[in-house]
């Protein structure tokens, strides 16, 4: 039982990283129907900026986190302005290609910095793990779950209560109608990218503090986003969260229970996709994805 709980807790904490990463992805898809292949790179960049501020500039890590989230807001705006804005009105597939190019560009640029080759760690900033009844819970895991909870609460509030947030959902529904009442679609796209970069930075912080700062494994989180959003529904925030946690937990359970049985192991990487396919067979829009409303 303790073993199961241990896997569950680890799974939830890893799942909350996926949720944060997927959140940004969902926001961009929701408002502009663009699939962002550069989400993993945004995660890595966020994690590196926190490291640079903490280790090189000697700012306390929590303040670095807040500053980095603010910087990421502007990185998101900048990326939208430079790479995506000129593509407005072009076919979606071209815009998606631009995000693939962006991912390559960003990972290329990372190799101009020490982070490309140098696996680093954040200095220890949290107390020793909590132990009771055979369970080991790292503070990093708790912090990860907390940060995800805070982010999601703020975003949920934003999208249901503030006029700007509601307008972002409106743009996702019907751009022409949004324009007709004066919603700035450009501003909405920019804001989606800014929010995506912010949640990516937060995810980068949690990944970095749990597993260290290795460029390849940071960007790999970006790829994990795909099963999460397909499972949860490409355009659902709640889906991103629940999908993230399901994938995280399934991964851990598979690793914990199946790796011993299956020769070669590595079931953690496969099992979530098996479940994914089964769920999609039953619910093709994902668990919480928007089903097109057709009035007959």
């Amino acid at each position, binding site marked *: 039982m303790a073993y199961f709980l241990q896997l569950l807790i680890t799974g939830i904490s890893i799942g909350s990283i996926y949720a944060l990463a997927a959140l940004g992805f969902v926001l961009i898809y929701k408002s502009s129907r663009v699939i962002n292949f550069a989400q993993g790179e945004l995660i890595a960049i966020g994690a590196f900026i926190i490291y640079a501020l903490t280790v090189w500039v000697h700012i306390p890590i929590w303040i670095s986190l807040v500053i980095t989230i603010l910087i990421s807001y502007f990185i998101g705006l900048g990326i939208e302005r430079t790479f995506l804005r000129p593509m407005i*009105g072009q076919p979606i597939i071209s815009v998606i290609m631009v995000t693939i190019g962006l991912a390559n560009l960003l990972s290329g640029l990372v190799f101009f910095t020490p982070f490309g080759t140098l696996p680093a760690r954040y200095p220890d900033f949290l107390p020793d793990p909590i132990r009771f009844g055979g369970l080991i819970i790292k503070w990093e895991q708790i912090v990860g779950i907390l940060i995800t909870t805070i982010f999601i609460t703020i975003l949920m509030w934003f999208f249901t209560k503030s*006029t*700007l947030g*509601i*307008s972002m*959902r*409106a743009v*996702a*529904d*019907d*751009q*022409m*109608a*949004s*324009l*007709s*009442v*004066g*919603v*700035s679609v450009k501003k909405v796209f920019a804001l989606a990218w800014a929010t995506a970069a912010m949640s990516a930075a937060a995810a980068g912080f949690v990944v970095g503090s749990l597993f260290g700062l290795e460029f390849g494994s940071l960007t790999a989180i970006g790829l994990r986003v795909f099963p999460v959003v397909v499972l949860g529904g490409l355009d659902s925030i709640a889906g991103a969260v629940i999908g993230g946690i399901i994938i995280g937990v399934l991964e851990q359970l598979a690793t914990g229970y199946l790796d011993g049985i299956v020769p070669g192991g590595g079931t953690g990487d496969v099992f979530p996709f098996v479940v994914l396919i089964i769920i999609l067979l039953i619910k093709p829009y994902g668990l919480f994805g*928007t089903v097109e*409303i057709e*009035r007959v």
Partner: protein
Amino acid sequence: MTESKVISPSRPSDLGEIQLDVNNVEVVYHDIIQVLRGVSLEIPRGKIIALLGTNGAGKTTTLRAISGLLKPENGFVKAGSISFEGKSIQNASGQKIVKSGIVQVPEGRRVFKHLRIEENLRVGSITRTDKKQIAKDLLHIYEIFPKLYDLRRKQAGYTSGGEQQMIAIGRALMAAPKLLLLDEPSLGLAPLLVKDIFERIKTVNQEGTTVLVVEQNASIALGIADYGYIMEQGKVVLEGTAEQLKNNPDVKEFYMGVSEGKRKSFKEIKSYKRRKRWM
């Protein structure tokens, strides 16, 4: 204005101060397709103006030219001028035009299907910052359309056509327009609902909003309008007060489906139409 036949000396400016002046506007889509070929309209403040015409006459394009919604369709105003309350607005951005007080209700309603009704209405207030007045206006829209209040938590995609038209009008009203542009509010609605919607439009107008309504249903539009323009092939071909247009035999024949004397056979009407055009 030289091109159109004026039935009598009555001009739009006789009805009041001209709020919107569309002067000889030409609109081109995709750089090559010319849709408007010199359209001139004068919209007096506080009145209801009907813009009538058949499919493809350029009515919607005229509205888009006014409301700044041409750009997403790759169109632009090539020549002519549009001025609202003395300020030039041709080719201005949609937001700027909404802020200056012109809001368009798009054809086919275009409600935000996945948003609740109240959320739909709130999006309409995006360009405004006066929170207290916005809250008051929301209540007032529920007064005009009590049904929307009852359904306010319902997802707009699951409401009926008439309700969606109310949502679309309410959403536009949340932007506090001085001039409301309506594109075919009767489209796809049952006759009773159409009557109801037009009564609400009349109410909105009586509260001080100027209305420019594009319609194919000429009799209902002229029923509430003060003045009307008739467009064909990208030009205004006839204009006059609603009374004058209603009594014009050509308008009756072409747009209201009634002709003088005995009923004509299908064949006769076809040949009549072919022989006699506005231009």
